[in-house]
Every structure is written in structure tokens, then in C-alpha cells.
């Protein structure tokens, strides 16, 4: 009873249940769901697809988790993804040797470098000017797509560059490159924040900025770091997305991905009010979102209705995590206990 209560109370309980329910639905609709086969030395299967397609969202969500933990939010990630894709593609297109590894390396590096600048800009607005994060990043969210269009001159830039394409759809030891990149980003973030004191500082600043300042925590540097990291993640995701289709579309690359990423963080149990965060939760959240999309396909619902289901998932998760629901539950349990007359404590 006690163990069960503690499991139910765990912040990851509902997200994991949600994921398992989605898996179960898939398994019923498509018995081969968990099958992973090796074809041409590459891993194939629904799970692999979920991981691969969910990689960009997960990468951004990792950066977003840290931003949200500092009481922030970054709405500009979609725009940054579009900008990085546009930059990389225009460099590759402008080069005489679009297929060479060096060209792609330069393109990717420049795109990532620009994302760092954009991240520093967000960090500057938030940390130095002290503007509310939602507003500060709204600026780049609005202007960023304009900038991306400026770079692509309103065109969809299609590139023919095998090394670049590899970034989006390649495999390494049978595992999709996108998944490997996501794993590396996730692992690095977890390692850096939890093995050093960074995580504690991030949470501390998110919970009480003034107390943290007086305790000697330098919030300014920290904010710069998380926004820059988040922009960097966004750029990586943007490159993967662009490489996947081998085309930079300033309007549609990373459209709504900021919302998916925020959703993943929230489903994972990190509060938008900042403070304690869970990268593992974010991982589960990102998987829930991607599995949902896949489920909609497998079950045979028209894919266009995915958004309705996303709405349903957001609502359900939010209502389950709501303090009101928790209260109602414990009240219900207390009444049950009273009725049973045994006085079993609710906790």
C-alpha cells in the first residue's frame, strides 16, 4: 500500500502510464509494434521510427527543460531551427562543391555558431535587461522567421549533398544518426548538470532568484548559459530536420516545434513555474508525444487529426498533475477509509 502510494505520487508516474497506454494501443492495433529487425545492417521497426522522428523534439526539449527550470521559457526555438537550416543550406548551395564533407562541416559549424549568437541575444534580453522570458523570446520568435526568409530570400532551398543528408537520415552501427545525436545531447546535458553543481544552481535560481544572488550564485551567467544551450539544441534539431528533407523551408521548418518541446517538458513533470526539473521526465514526455503521432498513424485515424489528440493528451496530463485533482483523490481516499471504518491513513 505504502509503496504503491509512493509510486503513484512519483512525478513520473502519470507520464509513464500514458506512454505505456499508448504502447498498448499500438500493440493491439499492430501486433508487430515492438519488433525490431535488422535490414541492410540498419535497425528497423516502429520503436526505431518513434525514436528517430522524436529526436529533434527531444533535443530541443532538453534545452527547454533547463530554460524552464530557471523560470524561463524559449519560444524562439522554432525560428532558430529555421534560421540554422536556412544558413546551412544557403552555404551549401553557394559552395562549388556541395557534396564535399568540408563544405558541410563549414555549413554546420556556421549554423551552430549563429545559433550561439541568437542564444546569447535571448540571454542578454533575459539576464541583462531583465525582460520576462516569454516576451523576450517572443521577439525572436516573431522576427526570426522573417530573418530566415531573408536568408532564403523567400525560396525553399533544396540541396543535393550526401554528407548533409546523412545527418538526417543516415545510420551509424545500424542506429539512426538523429537518435545518436539526441542521445549525446541528452547524456551531455544530464552529465553536466547533475555531476556538477550546475543543476542545483539552475533550480535554485528558478526557485528564488534573489536568495540565490545573495548566496553568491551568478544567475546572469547561468541564464546566458541555458538560453545559449537551448538555442544550440534548437539549431541541431533544425539541421536534422532540414537534412532529413534536404530542403530549408523558412516558413515550415520547426513550425510548432517550440510547442511540442514545451509540451514534452510539461508532460515530464517539470513545472512551468521553474525550479526542480527532470530530464528523464522530458525524455518520457518527448516519447509520449512522438508515440502519439505514430499511434494516430498505426490506428488508422487520418493523420491530420493528430493535433486533436495532442490537445487531448495535454489536457489529460495537465488535469492529472493538477493539485486540484490530487486533492480530490486524497479526499476520496480519505472518505473511503472513513467508510471502511478502519481509519486507514491516506498516506
Amino acid at each position, binding site marked *: 500500500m505504502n509503496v504503491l502510494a509512493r509510486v503513484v505520487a512519483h512525478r513520473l508516474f502519470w507520464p509513464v502510464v500514458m506512454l505505456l497506454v499508448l504502447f498498448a494501443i499500438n500493440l493491439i492495433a499492430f501486433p508487430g509494434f515492438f519488433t525490431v529487425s535488422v535490414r541492410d545492417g540498419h535497425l528497423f521497426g516502429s520503436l526505431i521510427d518513434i525514436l528517430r522522428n522524436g529526436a529533434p523534439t527531444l533535443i530541443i526539449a532538453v534545452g527547454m527543460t533547463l530554460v524552464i527550470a530557471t523560470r524561463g*521559457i524559449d519560444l524562439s526555438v522554432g525560428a532558430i531551427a529555421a534560421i540554422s537550416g536556412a544558413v546551412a543550406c544557403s552555404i551549401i548551395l553557394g559552395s562549388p562543391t556541395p557534396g564535399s564533407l568540408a563544405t558541410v562541416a563549414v555549413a554546420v559549424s556556421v549554423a551552430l555558431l549563429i545559433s550561439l549568437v541568437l542564444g546569447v541575444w535571448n540571454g542578454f*534580453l533575459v539576464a541583462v*535587461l*531583465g*525582460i*520576462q522570458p*516569454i*516576451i*523576450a523570446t*517572443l*521577439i*525572436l*520568435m*516573431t*522576427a*526570426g*522567421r*522573417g*530573418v530566415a*526568409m*531573408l536568408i532564403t*530570400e*523567400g525560396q525553399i532551398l533544396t540541396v543535393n549533398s550526401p554528407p548533409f543528408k546523412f545527418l538526417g537520415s543516415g545510420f551509424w552501427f545500424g542506429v539512426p544518426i538523429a537518435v545518436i545525436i539526441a542521445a549525446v545531447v541528452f547524456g551531455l546535458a544530464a552529465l553536466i548538470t547533475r555531476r556538477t553543481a550546475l543543476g542545483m544552481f539552475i533550480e535554485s535560481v528558478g526557485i528564488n532568484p534573489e536568495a540565490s544572488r545573495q548566496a553568491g550564485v551568478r544567475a546572469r551567467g547561468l541564464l546566458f548559459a541555458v538560453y545559449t544551450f537551448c538555442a544550440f539544441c534548437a539549431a541541431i534539431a533544425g539541421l536534422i530536420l532540414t537534412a532529413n528533407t534536404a530542403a530549408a523551408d*523558412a516558413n515550415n521548418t520547426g513550425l510548432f516545434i517550440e*510547442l511540442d518541446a*514545451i*509540451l514534452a517538458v*510539461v508532460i515530464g513533470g517539470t513545472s*512551468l*513555474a521553474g525550479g526542480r526539473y527532470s530530464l528523464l521526465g522530458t525524455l518520457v514526455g518527448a516519447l509520449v508525444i512522438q508515440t502519439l503521432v505514430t499511434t494516430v498513424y498505426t490506428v488508422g485515424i*487520418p493523420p*491530420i*487529426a*493528430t*493535433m*486533436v*489528440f*495532442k*490537445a*487531448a493528451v*495535454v*489536457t489529460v496530463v*495537465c*488535469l492529472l498533475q*493538477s*493539485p*486540484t*485533482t490530487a486533492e480530490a483523490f486524497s479526499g476520496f481516499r480519505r472518505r473511503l477509509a472513513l467508510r471502511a471504518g478502519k481509519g486507514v491513513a491516506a498516506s
Partner: protein
Amino acid sequence: MTKLLDAPQRPARSGGPAGPAQRQGLARSIRSLLTSPKYGPVIVTAVLFVAVFVIGGVRYRGFFSGQVFLNLLVDNSYLIVLAVGMTFVILTGGIDLSVGAVVALSGMIAASLLQSGWSPGVVIPLILVLTSVLGLLVGLMIHVFKVQPFIATLAAMFLARGLCYVISQNSISITDETFVQLAVARIPLGGGMSITPSVIIAVVVVAVAVWVLHATRFGRTVYAIGGGEQSGLLMGLPVARTKVLVYVISGFCSGLAGVLFTFYTLSGYPLTAIGTELDAIAAVVIGGTLLTGGYGFVLGSVLGVLVLGVIQTIITFEGTLSSWWTKIFIGALLLVFIILQKVLTARRR
């Protein structure tokens, strides 16, 4: 706006020479007006609007006319209505991301129902009721279940957008007589100038909103929630009801804006009005409403819409500027106004 007259000021000290003291008092009260978080941004927006309009007039032939100004209203009447609803929400310190999707949804509902032969007299009220109910659900989610407004309205946005696709993936055009009539109707104002029925609707909405916010208990409670929800609660104000109602109002306004938008486009399309929520938020912010809530005016938001409109018009007149510059300009304007708000509120602290 009578409150403008009694902005806080200390009486000039008696005994001193009256002339300079008075002038000093005036200068000080003007300065306090400009640096007040309440009035400062609105005044700056008004000045900016006039300035941009004058610059346009100087640069382009035919810009400086009444009709160009009226066209700002004609082209942006739906955005004005959206901004009104958004103002209510932002004044309480919330935000509504769903408005763009709801505009698209009401367009889709209108187009598909009209196509299957429903009467506009039924369709329009139905849309308004549906979007208000959606707003109500969002409000309840925010208030009862303590979901952040950002997330709750995000869910509503997904829902509305998804429902658009469920209705149809393609554009549905509207051929209904009444709608077409309303779309093409012009109301002459004399001197060759005219407006559309949409403008009148928008003006009525603005007038009602101004009255509600300024002169009713509900309106003052909206401001109170933005100033401090906990305090409002302890003062015994109907915080719960008000907080839910602002989202109903925003839902209603989005529905109405959707109807006005279909008058304008005469079709329903699921991908329409993407990013309109950003325009509405930008208009409200540029119009001087503090995003943390508590300070701002509906008329400011209308000014904000006009500023966005006039920039668009200038880009059209310029001809050589590509459309994406609009986004960059709006972004830059947002930046300027947000920093302005920051400076003004920081100085007061």
C-alpha cells in the same frame, strides 16, 4: 479616459513665486505621465503612430488620406476584435495562444455550414456560442485545475487547429448571399470615404470593452487580478468568476474575429491565421498593456493594431520591400516597447 486628468502630483508648495512653480508643476506632471507605467507606453504608441503616418504621408503620394486611415480599420477590424479579447486576458496576467486557431476554426465552421445550406442567422450565433464555450473550458482548466494559461490555451490551440482539419483539409469558399453582401458592402462616410460593416462591429466591440473595463465591477476586478490575485481574493473580489470570464470573452472575441475574417476572405481554410495570436499579442504589448498584467487600456491595443497596420501599409507602398520585413519590423517594435515598459516599471520601483 477622464482619469488622465488626475494623475498623481504633489501640489506646488505655497509661498513661492506662482508662475515658475506652476510651470514646474506642469512639467513635472507631464513627466510623471510619461514615466507612469499606466500611461507612458500608450502615449508613446500614439506619438509613434502619428509619426509613422506623417512620415508615410511625406514619402508617398496618396498616403496621407482619410481613406488610407480608414483602410487600416477595414483591413484590421478582425485583429482589433482579437486584440480586445487579448487585452482582457493579458490584463489579468494571462495569455491566450488559441486565438489564431479559433479564428481559423470559426471560419471553417462558417464555410462548411453555409455550404450545407444553413442560414447565416443561425451559423453566426452558433459560432459565437461554440467559441465562448471553448473559452469557458479553457478558463475552467486554468482556474479550477491550476493549469498555466500558456499550456491550457496551447491545448485549445491544438484542439481548434485539429478540428479545422477534421472539418476539411481544403479551402471552402463561401457563396452565401448575406455573407457576400456583408463582404462587399461599403458604408459611405462622405468625401469619397467609406468603411465596411466589420469596422462598425469592431468599433462597437471596442466601445463596449472600454465601458466594461472602466465602469463595471467586473472590469475593475480584471485590473485587480493583474495587480495581485491573492490581494484581490483577500479583498473578497470574485476572482474565480472573473478569471474564467476573461477567457470566455477572449473566446467570444476570437469567434467574432473569425466571422469578420470570413467577411474579409469569403472562405474557410484550415491553415489560415497561423501566427495571428502573435499579432494580437504584439498589438496589445505595443498598445501599452503590461504583460505581467494590471496596467493597460483597450484603446491602447487598438492603437497597437493601427501601428502594425500602418507598417504593413508602408511596406506595401514602398513596393521594393519584401513581405518578411513586416515580421522583422514587428519584432523590432516589440523589442523597443518591451524595453520601454521595463524601464518605466523599473523606475517606479
